[in-house]
């Protein structure tokens, strides 16, 4: 028996050592100082690097085309990987300790903004390096999903939540909270939204719920931590939801809400405009569906792109990011997919949500710590009971 244990232990030690032996060397340095170099120097350095690896989790059609255009224009090979949101970030996190990572740049969004910024995965700031950065949605350079991103992440596109409904079954789409409440009470189980721990559209609904039932969102602005007194009356929001639990339909993801609308199970839900447009384009949602931002407000945001700290090809990464944020590419993305660009200098028509809607009714998320609290409290006080 002793022999067995000894053998086991030795093997264990060997493997643990293999792991622990991962020493951290300094991150690879570009030959030029990217923060102070001129843009032309960066382009030259990028061409010398010869390739770039980019990770996203949606729009394979757009990104493939963009990659082809990039290769044609600069002669730099693009390794494009469309993966899964969770898998992409888990990979980036697992490579954090490596001197050289395998990802050069990636799309950043959702709850991962906080995780990745806290783990300090990105190199930057890049706001002053990317050309025409002032033409990209200024607010998105600074704050994303309630997290301060300080110019590290370049806006890729803006997206917006709103109410998505089937006009054949909803004749008077609600604009105020009272109207929505009345509609839900009159049409049990026909309004649905996803569990906020599983997607942003559900988070947006709960965000608006808190705004309307506990006295607005202005009081949270600027807080870097949860102030207990400000959330003391959140039980009003939970009571509202819990007392209507039988009349609400909970779904399991952003896409699931849209799928159930398509399936006829629900008639109204919260959705992301880019997501909705994508599903419509691919025949997964009927084209008569309509979307709007109600007068009571719905949160908006966007996705961004960041350069990984341990990327061995930072110049190429920067060049690729500038390519995606260029006027032609942003226009192309819009024409291909109907997804709202991050650039503010493009005139658009045929968007799902109107420009005035966005200007008037879009809300900014409250700071991230409140968002996290909102999610866990919702699960505890509404879903669990």
């Amino acid at each position: 028996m002793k022999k067995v244990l000894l053998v086991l232990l030795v093997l264990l030690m060997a493997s643990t050592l293999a792991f622990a032996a991962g020493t951290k060397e300094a991150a690879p340095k570009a030959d030029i100082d990217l923060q102070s170099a001129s843009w032309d120097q960066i382009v030259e350095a990028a061409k010398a690097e010869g390739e770039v690896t980019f990770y996203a989790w949606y729009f394979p059609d757009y990104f493939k085309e963009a990659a082809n255009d990039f290769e044609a224009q600069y002669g730099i090979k693009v390794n494009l990987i469309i993966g899964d949101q969770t898998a992409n970030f888990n990979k980036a996190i697992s490579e954090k300790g490596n001197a050289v990572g395998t990802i050069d740049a990636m799309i950043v969004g959702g709850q991962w903004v906080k995780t990745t910024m806290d783990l300090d995965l990105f190199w930057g700031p890049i706001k002053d390096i990317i050309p025409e950065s002032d033409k990209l949605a200024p607010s998105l350079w600074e704050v994303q999903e309630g997290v301060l991103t300080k110019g590290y992440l370049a806006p890729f596109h803006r997206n917006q939540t709103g109410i998505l409904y089937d006009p054949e079954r909803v004749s008077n789409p609600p604009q105020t909270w009272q109207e929505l409440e009345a509609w839900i009470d009159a049409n049990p189980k026909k309004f649905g939204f996803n569990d906020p721990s599983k997607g942003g559209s559900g988070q947006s609904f709960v965000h608006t719920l808190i705004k309307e039932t506990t006295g607005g969102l202005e009081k949270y602005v600027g807080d870097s931590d949860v102030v207990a007194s400000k959330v003391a009356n959140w039980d009003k929001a939970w009571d509202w939801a819990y007392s209507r639990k039988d009349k609400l339909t909970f779904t399991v993801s952003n896409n699931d809400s849209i799928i159930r609308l398509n399936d006829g199970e629900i008639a109204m839900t919260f959705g992301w405009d880019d997501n909705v447009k994508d599903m419509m384009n691919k025949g997964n949602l009927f084209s008569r569906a309509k979307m709007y931002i109600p007068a009571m407000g719905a949160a908006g945001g966007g996705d961004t792109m960041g350069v990984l700290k341990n990327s061995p090809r930072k110049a190429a990464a920067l060049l690729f990011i500038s390519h995606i944020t260029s006027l032609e590419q942003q226009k192309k993305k819009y024409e291909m997919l109907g997804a709202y660009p991050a650039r503010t200098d493009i005139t658009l028509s045929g968007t799902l949500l109107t420009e005035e809607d966005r200007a008037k009714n879009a809300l900014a998320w409250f700071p991230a710590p409140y968002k996290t609290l909102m999610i866990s409290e919702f699960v505890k006080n509404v879903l669990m009971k």
Partner: protein
Amino acid sequence: MLTAFFVLIQLLWVGIPILMAIMWSLVNPKDAWSYPNIFPPSFSLEQWRYVFNYTNIARALRTSYSVAPLAVLLSFLLSLPTSYVLGRKNIPGKKVFMLVVLLPMIMPGMVVALFLSRVFSMLGLSQTFFGLVIAHTLMSMPYMIRVMTTSFASIPQDVIDAAENLGASTFVKIKDIFLPMIRPGLIAGMIFAFTTSIEEFNLTFIIGTPTFETIPTILYSFMGYNFIRTNASVVSLLMMTPNIIMLFIVERFLKSDYLSASLGKM
């Protein structure tokens, strides 16, 4: 006839879900398939075109189907001696070993992947084909070992004793007794190892991409967070079809031996 009845049930049980996937893969993007339509309003090959144009599905298919057979072979070779010992010898700590070999399965995939990827990095196995084979072998071995162990354990001792009495050498024992008698378990183990390798996602994504893409890495882009049924159907069918064809071929090939293997013919 009972068999005919079962066949019918099976055709429905398996066929209907697959039929629905086929229909979803043929949905015309311009004409969404919604309630109350029982069938898509119009058909089109657009979803297929989309997947072939915008994903590296051909490369992924090649990678998946070249890693899997090697992973099966390697897990068989590595598991064979261990299964023999665990199946036929009553060594101290046997129960511990039986539990330890299950560990790759027990730990949730993403967590294991996070840690294992570091080990693979350290050993220089990241972004290599050999690394992928090792990773898939690791995930398949619990099945292989446990199933073959049971098979070894069920070989009756008197058969072995009889052979020894007749002066059979070790080589003959392996060739003519052990291998044939563990055959059903071995085949089961190999099938499990194969399917485990084809389905392996978490570790493969971290240590394989961007150099290698496999079918699951493409599948998850349409089935994970960003769930799009139409494209997901295409990738699923592309994945299932070679498997199912192979299944029928293998079944034909092994039909006679397989079902009647060691059915008390001794």
